């Protein structure tokens, strides 16, 4: 005979996971999330992310600008690809087709698709000025090599007092995707727990279950099983996102990305523990699926609120608002990872924030367990919170 308390929790967990994984709608939504995340990561690099690669064509006598183009590209730190077109028509086709960013039809006439912009503009304009300048100087009787040497200006050395983080943009993007995932995962899996609790109440199977399980075992198995599934989905999504970024090659992995992913996972665990217990406890008060939304509304409001708070903080991660809310549970669950990703957080603040969250979770788990135990067997009208707490506590 097996039947250790832990074995029982394991059985409940397994049922939760197996029934959900088998559900087609779960598979579809997981797949959809993966596709969306991969798309969000890959798409920007497909469209217009190619500023530092410049492809310029030349037609006929315009080949004279080639040396100047090379010099200008080198000065701009851009990778230059030079192509030669037999005639203007060929150049036109290449430019409209996107095979070339610009084409010199003559030394003083350049063809572009829509407009001259970005790195291409800088390279082309610099090259043009240099070509014209050196032609005039040569005309004026200066030695061609001397002119070339004079115009070959070494890049200006720049020393920044406060250099921008080269990864900032990438981290910002990662943080945004992370917070979006965290939000949907917390709310989605919290509600899954609530619906699971009410399913057992409305189908009355809970009475049969509780003749062989203690309420805390049923609650723990359900919360852990669903949470494990949520964590697995999140890890998978993170891997696919990172994989897509690496594979597309266009997005450089910001150095702090691993840290951001780690923070999102960590705060999912803490946030889920916090919210799932409350979702379960509140859901145990009602007996019908239709009532779930009502009874869990306060939690949804807090979640939506922290999500918008996190978005605000993303714009100004060093503000007092950011510093305070990233430490207060449960707001910290969404504000801290965003602060971590976009700003610089002293480690001790992360530590304090986590500690407070863990303390909140520990005290809540007991409270939620009491409410659940006091209410889950009482079908019919909504059970009062205090009433449930009282009878749950006496059950021990």
């Amino acid at each position: 005979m097996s039947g250790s308390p832990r074995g029982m929790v394991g059985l409940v967990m397994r049922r939760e996971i197996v029934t959900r994984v088998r559900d087609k709608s779960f598979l579809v939504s997981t797949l959809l999330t993966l596709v969306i995340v991969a798309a969000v990561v890959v798409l920007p690099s497909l469209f217009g992310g190619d500023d530092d690669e410049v492809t310029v064509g030349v037609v006929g006598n315009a080949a004279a600008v080639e040396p100047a183009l090379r010099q200008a590209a080198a000065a701009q730190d851009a990778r230059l690809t030079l192509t030669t077109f037999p005639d203007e028509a060929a150049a036109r086709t290449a430019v409209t087709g996107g095979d070339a960013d610009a084409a010199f039809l003559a030394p003083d006439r350049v063809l572009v698709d829509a407009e001259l912009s970005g790195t291409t503009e800088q390279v082309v304009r610099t090259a043009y000025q240099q070509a014209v300048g050196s032609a005039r100087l040569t005309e004026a009787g200066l030695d061609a090599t001397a002119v070339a040497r004079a115009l070959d200006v070494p890049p200006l050395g720049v020393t920044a007092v406060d250099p921008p983080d080269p990864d900032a943009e990438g981290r910002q993007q990662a943080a945004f995707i992370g917070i979006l995932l965290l939000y949907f995962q917390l709310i989605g899996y919290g509600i899954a727990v609530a619906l699971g609790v009410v399913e057992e109440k409305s189908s009355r199977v809970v009475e049969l279950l509780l003749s062989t399980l203690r309420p805390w075992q049923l609650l723990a198995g359900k919360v852990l099983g669903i949470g494990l599934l949520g964590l697995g989905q999140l890890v998978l999504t993170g891997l696919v996102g990172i994989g897509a970024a690496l594979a597309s090659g266009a997005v450089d992995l910001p150095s702090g990305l691993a840290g951001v992913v780690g923070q999102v996972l960590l705060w999912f665990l803490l946030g889920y523990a916090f919210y799932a217990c409350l979702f379960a406890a509140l859901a145990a008060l009602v007996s019908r699926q239709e009532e779930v939304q009502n009874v869990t509304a306060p939690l949804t409001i807090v979640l939506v609120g922290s999500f918008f708070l996190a978005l605000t903080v993303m714009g100004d991660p060093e503000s007092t608002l950011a510093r305070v809310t990233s430490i207060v549970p449960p707001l910290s669950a969404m504000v801290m990872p965003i602060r971590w990703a976009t700003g610089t957080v002293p480690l001790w603040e992360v530590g304090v924030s986590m500690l407070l969250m863990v303390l909140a979770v520990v005290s809540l788990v007991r409270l939620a367990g009491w409410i659940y135990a006091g209410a889950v067997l009482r079908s019919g009208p909504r059970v009062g919170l205090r009433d449930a707490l009282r009878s749950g506590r006496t059950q021990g």
Partner: protein
Amino acid sequence: MLEVDGLTKRYGDTLALSSLTFAVRPGEVFGFVGANGAGKTTAMRIMLGVLAADAGEVRWQGRPVTFETRRRFGYMPEERGLYPKMRVGEHLVYLARLHGLDAAAATRAAEALTERLGVATRRDDAVEKLSLGNQQRVQLAAALVHDPEVLVLDEPFSGLDPVGVDALAGVLLERAKRGVPVVFSSHQLDLVERLCDSVGIINAGRLVASGTVAELRERETTRQLRVVVPDVPATWAGTLPGVTVVSERRGEVVLELGPGVDDQQVLAAAARAGRVEHFSRRRPTLTELFREAVADVPADRVEVTA
């Protein structure tokens, strides 16, 4: 021995159970009957620990029932309930495992029971796809799947067709033969009479009569006679002292004898009136016993419940 001792349960002002006491021996089938709201479900839920009693205790094999002992009980709640979307076979295996069976034993038990209860072909269907009666059979299998030491079933026969009733009755008697005490509640008294070794009649939370059906009949204070004297009006009986005519139909009379009335004198009177075709002691049916037990609520009980 399964002993229910002095169970008391109060819901606000309602006294649902007041010192309910009875015992069921191993191998005994105990029928638990009583009017709606009498307290049967309340008592059974307390026996299974899904409800806490205000006072009293339940003992099995001489020791107070704990959570661990209850896990070896089989229970069919009044409010039927299974996961609607779970497959029948998997559901039974899951419940068996929750009761401590290993995977292989749980699978074997689930297969054997679905076979026995006639739902073997539905093992791979979701519970919600079964008809109500078949869901009921699965519910029963859920109570039996872990080979329980004690069975507590709340109205297990309601909703079953005659074939289902026979199948269920067969299973219950078989389990009883193996030494399992079986307690079940029912409003189908003919069934209770047929299946049960003993019966407890509960009224307003208190056991008002219990014992074997035969004992209950014997204990009956009023004696009734069924006498058939064809084609003779019952006036011959109406004149006898201490005898009341309960019913009369074409020469067949049911008489109730007062204390001390000699039935042989009644027979002599009948013989004087005509040709006696039938003369017997009439045994009350369980239904009649039930009506009587439930009808005379003692005055003190009314006070307690009020």
